[in-house]
């Protein structure tokens, strides 16, 4: 298959999904007598002055950073056929504990930030490990247990915030933990705007951005270039083939959930270290669920997830301008929800087109290629056709 066709096939599903989502939400808006063109005009209007435009870009990127991490956390588990719906609870609990620990100690700069990150990662990984242990030892479906643990985590987080970790005075309208000291805050990256000759916006670009990029690259290397990554993907593609070739299925479930949870622990930190410096009652919520959508849209690949996170960041930026312009801001949620549903359908259609193309190809070219005979354990080409997450079965065998 030529490179062009492979790229085309990989891009086909997400692009189709976004187009379908835009069309459907436009229809919904039109039915409810809201002019969709006006709404989209507001969404794309980033501001008049250069300073405003750069600010809008900063807002989008700052929102995309946690979404990217959330997408990665979900995608790692997806690649193994595990549904970590508990990312929401994992990051909220991790963030509140990390905020408490961060406020309690004073350390030299980088060490302080590192400690907060380690605490968050450990707490979230621990929380995710409960799901894995219940699945491995008691056969409890990870979907149900992670959802229940979400509620337990949110309850515990609210208990910690209003009880032991409370830092705000009695009667304050927003309850928060004690503010993390200067050394535990992560400065912005606005110096690059000066270097690039752009206007310096009033908002700080998160200093967490490079950390997120490094995490993304490390994960891509881990998944595609190591034994562990191969075992993980093989278990996701065909559990029976993986265990036949010596992969310890139970061990893989625990390791994968620990990894997924560890990444989930990082989700709340961009906001915590960059702006709020404390966990509050109105701390950013819902990133775990949006992470599922981002992972699906990005087809569980780090690069795809980065683009999906930017798209969702772009959509979320429009929330405030839409409200100011007196349009229903939940249009954004509708578009996001429709994208998710459209992308899974589009993935499936893309997979079928690819299968049919392969069938046609083999009909002309004689016997199927040898790769297909390796059984289901043979890996698909990196950007090849794939179904929705979890059922990512390479169907070259049937061709």
């Amino acid at each position: 298959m030529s490179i062009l066709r492979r790229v085309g096939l990989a891009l086909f599903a997400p692009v189709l999904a976004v187009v379908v989502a835009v069309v459907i939400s436009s229809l919904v808006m039109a039915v409810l007598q809201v002019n969709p063109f006006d709404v989209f005009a507001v969404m794309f209007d980033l501001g008049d002055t250069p300073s405003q435009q750069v600010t809008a870009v900063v807002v989008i990127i700052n929102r995309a950073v946690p979404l990217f991490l959330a997408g990665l956390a979900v995608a790692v588990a997806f690649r193994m056929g595990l549904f970590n719906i508990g990312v929401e609870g994992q990051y909220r609990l991790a963030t509140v504990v990390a905020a408490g620990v961060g406020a309690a100690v004073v350390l030299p700069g980088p060490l302080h930030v590192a400690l907060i990150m380690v605490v968050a990662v450990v707490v979230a990984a621990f929380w995710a490990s409960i799901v894995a242990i219940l699945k491995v030892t008691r056969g409890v479906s990870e979907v149900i247990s992670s959802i229940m643990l979400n509620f337990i985590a949110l309850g515990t987080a609210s208990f910690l915030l209003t009880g032991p970790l409370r830092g705000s005075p009695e009667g304050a309208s927003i309850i928060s933990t004690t503010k993390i000291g200067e050394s535990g805050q992560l400065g912005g990256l606005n110096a690059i705007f000066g270097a690039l000759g752009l206007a310096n916006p009033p908002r700080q670009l998160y200093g967490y951005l490079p950390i997120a990029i490094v995490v993304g690259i490390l994960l891509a290397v881990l998944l595609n270039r190591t034994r562990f990554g191969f075992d993980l993907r093989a278990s996701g593609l065909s559990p029976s083939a993986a265990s036949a070739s010596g992969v310890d299925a139970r061990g893989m479930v625990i390791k994968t959930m620990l990894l997924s949870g560890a990444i989930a622990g990082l989700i709340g930190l961009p906001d915590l270290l960059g702006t709020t410096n404390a966990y509050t009652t109105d701390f950013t919520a819902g990133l775990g669920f949006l992470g599922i959508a981002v992972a699906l849209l990005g087809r569980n690949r780090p690069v795809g997830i980065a683009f999906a996170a930017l798209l969702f960041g772009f959509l979320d930026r429009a929330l405030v301008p839409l409200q100011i312009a007196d349009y229903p801001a939940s249009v954004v949620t509708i578009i996001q929800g429709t994208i998710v549903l459209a992308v899974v359908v589009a993935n499936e259609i893309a997979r079928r087109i690819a299968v049919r193309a392969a069938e046609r190809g083999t009909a002309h070219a004689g016997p199927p290629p040898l790769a297909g005979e390796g059984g289901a354990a043979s890996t698909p080409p990196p950007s090849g056709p794939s179904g929705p997450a979890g059922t990512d079965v390479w169907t070259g065998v049937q061709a």
Partner: protein
Amino acid sequence: MSSVATTPRPSRGPITDLLTGGSKRTRLLWLVLAGLVMFSLVRAISGENALTSSSTMSAALLLAVPIGLAALGGLFSERAGVVNIGLEGMMILGTWGAGFAGYQWGWFAALIGGVVFGALGGLLHALATVTFGVDHVVSGVAINILAAGIVRFLSELLYTDNPAGGGVTQSPALSSNPPEISVPVLSSGPDLLGDLEQRRWFLLSDLAGVLRGFTSGVGVLTILALLLIPATYLLLWRTAFGLRLRSCGENPAAADSLGVPVYRMKYIAVVISGGLAGMGGVFLVFIAGIYRENQTNGRGFIGLAALIFGNWRPGGLAAGAGLFGYSDGLQLRSRSAVVALLLLVAVLLIAVAVWQFLRRKLVQSVLAVAVAAAALAGFLTIDVLPQGIVSFTPHLTTLLVLSLASQRLRMPQADGVVYRRGEH
């Protein structure tokens, strides 16, 4: 939860036979009796009358019905082979539909509106999973996200400047409430059961409290909802339609070869599933008399857990829904009574420890004693649990029960498998 073990087993001693042997009905009777005795014991020791009071029981019934309806919805869908994580989303749609129709045309319209909205969610799930062959869990998750967005959008559009009231997160109040009845003499008028309950006699008052909770001020619709459980059993296990539907969940290829319209059956099942989940949402709206955002609070998921706990059988899921409804009702009625549950857990775990010890499983036995001791210590030292902790009582109960009970369960054979005609 035990429907598979029908083959006769060798005797394991007289006590074991008495407790676990015999017919299913005897075992169930023992279980219920033991549970009641334990509850009255814990109630008497802790002095927490809310544990078995009629008000807790009627709250438990009220809250068990939505969970049970969601579970029943899950039963239809999963028996036809479609995993339905989207129950929560369909329930959310149901609450909105009930609020929208209810404030304009009263309670009956609310019921219809909720069911229709839920069924629309089911139709979407069927379209994605059956026609497009999308992974069932992925589609369900997408529906949950989408449903939350849709209801917020609709509320924002229709309620913000509505003269009848309401706002971005809630509808105007329902214009009429569904009818209720109390059983005469027992629970109204002379109120014999209420009288007995107030005397605080061991066992008798507890029994009276439970009975009064189920007979005083019960909604007519609640009774109809309870009747849906035996009705579902009859429909799915005693009719040709039910056999066909279940065959799609066990072996769709075989069903197809025998002329069962598999796609159509799955569509019907998933739409019914959405309708029932939506009806569960309607009951939540009836409790509050108004639609509020996030009213479901994960009850769709708890319904799914009740279904799994109940081994994909109507009777089992009803028991699961009752259990979760009770823990939900208790945490709403009394925060201090939840502490008494710790004592109950301790007593139960000590029983488990003795049982495991007799079966020579020392590790499990020691583990159970350790946890029992921790629970007992908690009961003795804690007065009132903080709100954050109490709020997740039903979810923690769900998790504990599932991790204890999910070993001997058997899901429909082809549950969650995407069926494409001609590919199998």
